[in-house]
């Protein structure tokens, strides 16, 4: 992984010191909250429902065992002994005190971490495929490009005060997308030209929130040395032309959709033609230098085929076999596997880990790998370099930590925002709902029978829980102070991205889980074979059978399909 040099270390130390001064000026009353708020946000510090929340970047989801131990230390020392992993490969602490945050930033700087630009109207944490570098199906490791983009975007002076937040994601696998790039302000896919030259396909204007939009391809091929100049051209067009009069119309997706992708592309290409000479261009040796940080570890020989993993998947111990099927991914290196640690066990908030779990997972990363851990956009963790022959032993260790639930990619491996339990913006709770769903659907045989299925829950229209792109999406709303939940179906964040549709009126808290159950029953009743996934079946039959099941014929007669 990337290691900080002296300049990188100095930058994060200076940032902590700078924030210490800003906090002192705020507490002394020298600056108002209105002036201070953008400063604390650009350091990832929100005022949430109960307290300050600090969001720390895990750049492109990659961190080390040492960094994990420091996160455990922070949880113990300055918070309430736990942290929450988010969909954007960040971790959040919910109980920060303003005057202690500079100390936390110092502690992060010690281990080459920071909270820079994890909030505010700037370029946020760069995200990517959590299997980057180990995925057998990838064209190339996306992480060197993520790190280059992280450095370029860090304190970029021109783009420190954009109209709205800005999210960039990378993927490197043809025809597959584990980073949801089409739902980002900019999505970058590593590709090859017809001649075999490496470069990028650039997507722009995707996003969720209250106006979900699937991005458009702005450039099919960009030679790789031009990545940053092209990103600068897009950002500059946005910075100068994005709306600033209405926070709900300020994202780049609104600019792109109001101009149309053709006109937006013209503006960007015009800007790029005029500015690319002034902007940064990579030389091959610079690219190679960055790639060297992400070179594969020296894997000791560990067998040469996938047969061992395939045999584990048929093992006599049915629970281990299930774990090997659902939570273990084939690795680029023969004899190795990538292992998903589920942060969706049955009795804890989705995405949460205690300090002791963090410490133990750090130890496992050292023992069963090379000290690396990944945070996924699905709010799970991955140990990326496990010798396949170590899987039985690792599995037993993970069970004692309550992170071995074999539900990766299943219904209960859901995405869930913090909701009204913690969030200042939320309209309804999402964590207890997620918990109830996991408790109700705790039969793993049943989950396997349902097959690949994504359930995503947001506690408000800002869509941090990605409800628009869940095969099943749930959106919490407020009706006169009471929590209600809209159900939507048909979303997907994959390469064939689609937005879910609301089928009818919202459900109250006590019946929403039953409504989910009815959707599942309907799917099982109409699928053509055991292999037809939920999303395939939904796309084949459309919403009518599901709406009938949920709302009945009477309602259906009053509200005929559009």
């Amino acid at each position, binding site marked *: 992984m990337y290691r900080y040099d002296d300049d990188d270390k100095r930058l994060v130390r200076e940032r902590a010191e700078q924030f210490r001064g800003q906090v002192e000026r705020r507490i002394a009353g020298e600056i108002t909250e209105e002036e201070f708020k953008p400063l604390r946000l650009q350091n990832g510090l929100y005022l949430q429902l109960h307290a300050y929340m600090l969001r720390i970047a895990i750049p492109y989801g990659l961190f080390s065992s040492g960094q994990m131990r420091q996160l455990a230390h922070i949880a113990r020392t300055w918070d*309430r002994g736990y942290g929450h992993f988010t969909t954007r490969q960040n971790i959040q602490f919910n109980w920060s005190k303003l005057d202690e945050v500079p100390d936390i930033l110092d502690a992060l700087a010690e281990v080459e971490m920071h909270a820079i630009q994890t909030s505010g109207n700037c370029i946020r944490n760069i995200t990517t495929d959590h299997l980057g570098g180990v995925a057998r199906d990838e064209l190339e490791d996306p992480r060197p490009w993520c790190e280059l983009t992280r450095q370029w975007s860090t304190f970029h002076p021109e783009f420190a005060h954009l109209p709205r937040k800005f999210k960039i994601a990378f993927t490197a696998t043809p025809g597959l997308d584990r980073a949801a790039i089409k739902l980002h302000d900019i999505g970058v896919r590593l590709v090859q030209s017809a001649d075999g030259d490496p470069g990028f396909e650039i997507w722009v204007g995707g996003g969720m929130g209250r106006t979900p939009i699937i991005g458009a391809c702005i450039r099919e091929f960009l030679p790789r040395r031009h990545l940053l100049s092209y990103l600068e051209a897009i950002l500059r067009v946005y910075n100068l032309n994005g709306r600033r009069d209405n926070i709900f119309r300020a994202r780049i997706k609104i600019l792109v959709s109001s101009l149309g992708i053709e006109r937006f592309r013209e503006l960007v290409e015009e800007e790029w033609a005029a500015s690319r000479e002034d902007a940064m261009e990579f030389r091959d040796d610079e690219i190679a230098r960055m790639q060297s940080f992400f070179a594969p570890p020296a894997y000791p020989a560990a067998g040469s085929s996938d047969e061992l993993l395939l045999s584990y998947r048929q093992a006599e111990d049915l629970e281990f076999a299930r774990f090997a099927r659902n939570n273990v991914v084939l690795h680029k290196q023969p004899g190795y596997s990538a292992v998903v640690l589920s942060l969706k066990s049955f009795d*804890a908030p989705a995405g949460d880990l205690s300090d002791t779990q963090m410490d133990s997972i750090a130890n496992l990363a050292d023992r069963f790998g090379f000290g690396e851990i990944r945070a996924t956009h699905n709010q799970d963790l991955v140990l990326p370099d496990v010798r396949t022959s170590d899987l039985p032993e690792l599995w037993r260790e993970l069970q004692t930590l309550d992170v071995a639930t074999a539900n990766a990619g299943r219904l209960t491996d859901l995405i869930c925002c913090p909701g009204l339990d913690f969030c200042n913006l939320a309209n309804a709770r999402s964590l207890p709902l997620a918990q109830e769903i996991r408790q109700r659907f705790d039969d793993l045989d049943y989950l396997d029978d349902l097959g690949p299925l994504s359930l995503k829950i947001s506690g408000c229209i800002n869509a941090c829980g990605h409800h628009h792109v869940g095969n099943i999406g749930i959106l919490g709303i407020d009706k006169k102070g009471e929590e209600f939940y809209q159900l939507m179906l048909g979303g997907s964040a994959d390469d064939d991205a689609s937005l879910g549709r609301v089928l009818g009126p919202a459900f109250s808290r006590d019946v929403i889980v039953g409504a989910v159950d009815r959707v599942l029953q309907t799917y099982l009743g109409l699928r053509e074979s055991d292999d037809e996934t939920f999303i395939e079946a939904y796309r084949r039959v459309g919403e009518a059978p599901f709406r009938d099941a949920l709302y009945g014929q009477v309602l259906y007669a009053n509200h005929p399909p559009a």
Partner: protein
Amino acid sequence: MATNGQPPGTTTVHVVTGNLTCAGTIVYLSADGSWQTALERARAFEREDEAKAELARVRVDEAEITEPYVFAAASRDGRVGPSSAREILRAAGPSTRLRRPD
């Protein structure tokens, strides 16, 4: 978390709240002008405009309070309680079990 169908004798009152700038803790403006962590000790303004006037003063005068606002609460037998999902959770804390109970 039902909030409709309030029992008879319940009236709507208005409360000024915010967070302590330094600690982040939720506090409510009390009758003696101090800031209290318990909602029951909050001053119950009968008229919203009175509460809003107090809010305006707090915004200008009290740097130790961050992001103050006014919300509608329920008063019964002189006791103030929350009447929305949001304020119930603010007053009582998260309804989820924490990984490590404190």
